[in-house]
């Protein structure tokens, strides 16, 4: 509990000037989080509304991930001091970043599924705020909206899944989920939950938002869109694993493998330095999702852990490159790799970080990425269909290819666009800010994950998180090991021949050519934007139709009814005037006539009147008697 309070307090008491304060609070939080590692699983519950008791639950898995979030968050805070320095909205930035960290931590310690959903949405909301941080640029604001909307659609799945789970199966607490009788509704709930996870973890068909999310400041991309938020989906699936039915798992595995492949292909063609990393994140997340789908959730969490380090490292380094490019040359797009090249000379430290973290991403032996990825690859062979391991292995070939291409394009060869590097421009960040780089790069080396560089199940924390397990000797163990090494070597080798300094392809990039045909298709992430745009249009058409119906049909009916009323009213008016009044007038006329006639009778003298009276009296008596 303490770290959460520490985190929240920290953010509300910071201002634009005292920019070191947030980082200090994160540091304090980290220490608290490390203390969490030593306690036993703990459950705290409280009543929220009548009938619903929310709760938090901290077990070893939460504790480890909480520490991870704090750790990465701290490093990102430190780096942000360098990267965001001088931005007018800095206070706002710290606030949003802190808000995000708090929501993410809340997500990790929620016990009740609804509480998890609450934080899940808050994470999405803070991500929306951070992506749209530079809201004055319309494009970035649009990106934020797209990202939020895509998430929102997937969240609809999540909330349905949660409600079905709660109302039909009475399973509301993560700590108390247990396997139940497999019914159609359970599969339904599982798939709905998985859709939610796909949304946040940028899986097919929701992966389009992550690339858009790159519109936010780069440290944000490192924290949210690489290391923490996007892994929420994997965390969720691991948590609800007990209630996932085989069919749901099957879907999860296939989606994961498919996404890993699709995104890896898309990453091959990107020119934006952050876009490559974004697609690579999607691809790696695909691995993790697939891992859960085939039951190797331990490996997935392991990969989540290692990925958090090397991908955050890559993003921070990329951020530094962008920062440098902006300072060195204002006229060109500072994120386009075609404008870079030869930056090794100016940014040696960044280059080193990039190299180490990149190797881990590629899955080079002796790196952490190698270990965790191998675990998932091995497990993928247990999948019920061949397509899963096939896609996984192909992606394992593509990954080293695109990251090598990127490193070569950015750091080696000739400088493709003029840079004005003066002495005043400080290239590398100041010293304390180098620390995150160093820590993240170190974290990507095998020794900090597992003592044995070739044992995919040797994660130090593995036993701590999941309890002791009997060593599983996969029959394919050694084959997987060998083949993944071969694949990595092939990928790197081929990329090197293509993009080495002076190679034809590397030189061609100097001319910024518009992509065409298939390349454009892959460049735009398999045209996923078009698909979204299509839905967008569809929704707009429906909504215009609804508005039209309102105006033309419902309102016309109402107006028509009103008109009818008026006509009726007028008609009644006419009827009144001519018919009813006519009759009345007629009657009046008649009586007047009678009156006149009678008056004539009455007019003569008194005798006649008396005679008339007598006559009437006689008449009445006569009538009375007979």
């Amino acid at each position, binding site marked *: 509990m303490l770290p959460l309070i520490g985190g929240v307090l920290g953010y509300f008491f910071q201002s634009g000037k005292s920019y070191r304060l947030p980082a200090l609070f994160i540091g304090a939080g980290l220490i608290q989080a490390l203390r969490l590692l030593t306690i036993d699983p703990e459950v705290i519950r409280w*009543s*929220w*509304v*009548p*009938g619903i008791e929310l709760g938090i639950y901290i077990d070893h898995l939460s504790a480890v991930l909480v520490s991870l979030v704090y750790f990465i968050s701290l490093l990102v805070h430190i780096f942000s001091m360098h990267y965001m320095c001088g931005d007018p909205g800095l206070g706002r930035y710290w606030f949003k970043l802190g808000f995000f960290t708090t929501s993410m931590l809340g997500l990790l310690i929620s016990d009740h599924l*609804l509480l998890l*959903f*609450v*934080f899940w*949405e*808050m994470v999405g*909301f803070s991500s929306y705020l951070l992506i*749209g941080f530079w*809201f*004055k*640029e*319309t494009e970035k*604001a*649009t990106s*934020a*909206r797209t990202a*939020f*909307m895509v998430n*929102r*659609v997937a969240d*609809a799945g999540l*909330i*349905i899944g949660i*409600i*079905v789970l*709660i*109302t*039909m199966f009475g399973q509301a607490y993560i700590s108390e989920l247990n396997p139940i009788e497999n019914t159609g509704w359970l599969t339904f709930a599982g798939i709905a939950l998985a859709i939610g996870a796909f949304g946040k973890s940028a899986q097919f068909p929701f992966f389009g938002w992550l690339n858009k999310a790159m519109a936010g400041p780069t440290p944000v991309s490192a924290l949210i869109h690489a290391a923490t938020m996007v892994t929420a989906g994997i965390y969720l699936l691991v948590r609800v694993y007990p209630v996932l039915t085989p069919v749901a798992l099957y879907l999860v595995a296939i989606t994961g493998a498919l996404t890993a492949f699709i995104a890896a292909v898309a990453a091959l063609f990107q020119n934006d330095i952050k876009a490559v990393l974004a697609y690579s994140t999607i691809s790696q997340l695909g691995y993790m999702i697939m891992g859960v789908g085939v039951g190797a959730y331990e490996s997935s969490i392991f990969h989540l852990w290692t990925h958090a380090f090397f991908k955050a490292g890559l993003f921070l380094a990329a951020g530094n490159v962008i920062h440098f490019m902006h300072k060195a040359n204002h006229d060109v797009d500072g994120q386009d790799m075609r404008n870079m090249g030869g930056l090794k000379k100016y940014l040696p430290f960044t280059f080193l970080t990039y190299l180490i973290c990149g190797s881990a991403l590629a899955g080079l032996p002796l790196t952490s990425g190698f270990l965790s990825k191998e675990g998932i690859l091995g497990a993928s062979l247990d999948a019920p269909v061949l397509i899963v391991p096939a896609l996984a292995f192909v992606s394992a070939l593509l990954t080293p290819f695109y990251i090598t291409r990127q490193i070569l394009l950015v750091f080696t060869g000739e400088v493709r666009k003029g840079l004005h590097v003066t002495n005043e421009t400080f290239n590398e960040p100041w010293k304390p800010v180098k620390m995150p780089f160093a820590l993240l790069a170190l974290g990507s080396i095998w020794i900090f994950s597992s003592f044995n560089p070739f044992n995919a199940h040797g994660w130090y924390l593995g036993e701590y998180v999941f309890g002791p397990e009997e060593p599983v000797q996969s029959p394919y163990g050694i084959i997987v090991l060998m083949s993944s090494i071969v694949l990595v070597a092939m990928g790197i080798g081929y990329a090197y021949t293509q993009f080495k300094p002076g190679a034809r392809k590397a030189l061609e990039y100097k001319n910024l050519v518009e992509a065409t045909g298939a390349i454009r298709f892959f460049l735009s992430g398999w045209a996923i934007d078009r698909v979204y745009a299509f839905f967008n249009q569809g*929704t*707009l058409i*429906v*909504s*215009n*139709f*609804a*508005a*039209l119906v*309102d105006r033309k049909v*419902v*309102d016309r009916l*109402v107006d028509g009814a*009103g008109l009818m*009323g008026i006509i009726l009213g007028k008609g009644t008016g006419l009827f009144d005037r001519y018919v009813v009044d006519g009759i009345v007038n007629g009657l009046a006329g008649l009586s007047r006539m009678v009156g006149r006639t009678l008056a004539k009778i009455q007019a003569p003298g008194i005798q006649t009147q008396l005679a008339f009276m007598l006559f009437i009296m006689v008449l009445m008596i006569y009538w009375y008697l007979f």
Partner: protein
Amino acid sequence: MENHLLSLIVFIPLLFALGVFFIPKTQHLLIKVVTLVATLLQLVLSLKLFFDYDGSFKPSEWSEAFLFVEKADWIQLSLGNYGRFVIDYFVGVDGISMPLVVLSALLLVIGVISSWRLTEKVKGYFILYLTLSTSIVGCFVALDLFLFYVFFEFMLLPMFFLIGIWGGPRRAYASIKFFIYTLLGSLLILIVMIGLFISIEDSSRALKMADETGKIEIVHSFSLVKMMEDSYGAEAFLAPDSEVAFGGISLRYWAFILLMIGFAIKLPVVPVHTWLPDAHVEAPTAISVILAGILLKVGGYGFFRIAYGIFPDAAMEYAFPVACFGVLSIIYGGFAALAQNDLKRMIAYSSVSHMGFVMLGLATLTIEGISGALFQMISHGLISGALFLVVGVVYDRTHDRQIQNLSGLASKMPVYTFFTVVFFFASLGLPGFSGFVGELLTLIGGIGSEGINGLVPSWLGMLAVIGIIISAAYYLWALQRMFFGKFWAREESWEDKLNDVDRREWLMLLPLAVLVLLFGILPGIILDPIDNSVNFFVDNLLSRGQQFLIK
């Protein structure tokens, strides 16, 4: 004082309206201050009501379900062989009406603050406003159907003039549309009211009267409590065992349908909702706030107290169509909102969409659904009220509400943008704000109903989730078009006028923002005290409904 709390809350504004009547019409400030004092007094008293309300009491029958009851003879007519007609002044609150009273009082205060700048025909405006206050609150506390109807009808008149005189350019059309629509609804309610009146007999009252007059008469009563206790006379044609039918449907069901249509117009439910956007667009800001924040809730309250409370069997029989209309409103309203270019119209349609949740929650007759529907009413009252204030801020400055005529307001008016973002996200159901709680509980009810009482199928609840997605779409889109990007305004002169929110606007927006957040995080503040009432409501309705259906 303790015993007359409700009467005080109801009639204080009317008394002050009389006072205002004697203030010379040039004394604008005095009139405003008097009105403000009246509404503030009303608010303080209703807060007292909120804190004095004892939610721990578990009622077991309707006659003891209401607190703060006041009862006095009002009109009595002896009609020879027909018996005696009795109309009482009978008020009281339970957990369903109590929060609505407090909500009304709060929004009425804010409405006064928001009309502070009014310069035209001030006296008339505030007299009408105060009259409106009395009739709205009266509606929520009335326990005599006749009294309810009097208040219900009385709301129409001030509303009609407030829109028709102080409204925008198309005010004549809007106000007449509003009037005719709601009058039609009232007529339907009136028909049922008379039917019920004839059917209900108060036998205990008859005995009491017999002691006094020495003559035994049948006593017909308008008492809602008697109606909910099913004290029907022998062979009454609206009694559950009545066999009178019309067109193959028993009269009881007809009565329910008429009531539902009558209140659906007020709520409003698609397809009888089109008065709402017009009325909203033309009404002055304060009146929009009252209209969206409170008046719509009278419709919802009518569902609860009258249609459902009196005809539970019909409610169970027609749960599915009612829920369908709810979901239709949610989705249709959402789509229609997406297509609007006028900010106020968009929010009006979003009201239609959000009120659909009330109907869905009610139809499920589950505890979650009912408390969700109630909570949604409260939360929507606060949020939509605030949203109209937000629109009012821009409209005051530019006299324009078209979304496309402005952009990049965020850099020009940061505080205003902050409030807009808060209320937009509160309205689209972001967790942490009250809108989420209402929608969530309703959805739990909607999806879970199938397993609990089988009234509403799960897929309907799931369909309603689409509404939540669309609401995000239109709010974010509007936000992006109006607030993000570079600052731009259609008329250059607007640039100087678009200042950030002033102190008066802070005063209106801040309390609402705080409450929306507070109720979002701790919904128990509202839901705990009313829990027993809701439980009783659901149990009572289900058991009575079941019993009647078997007959």
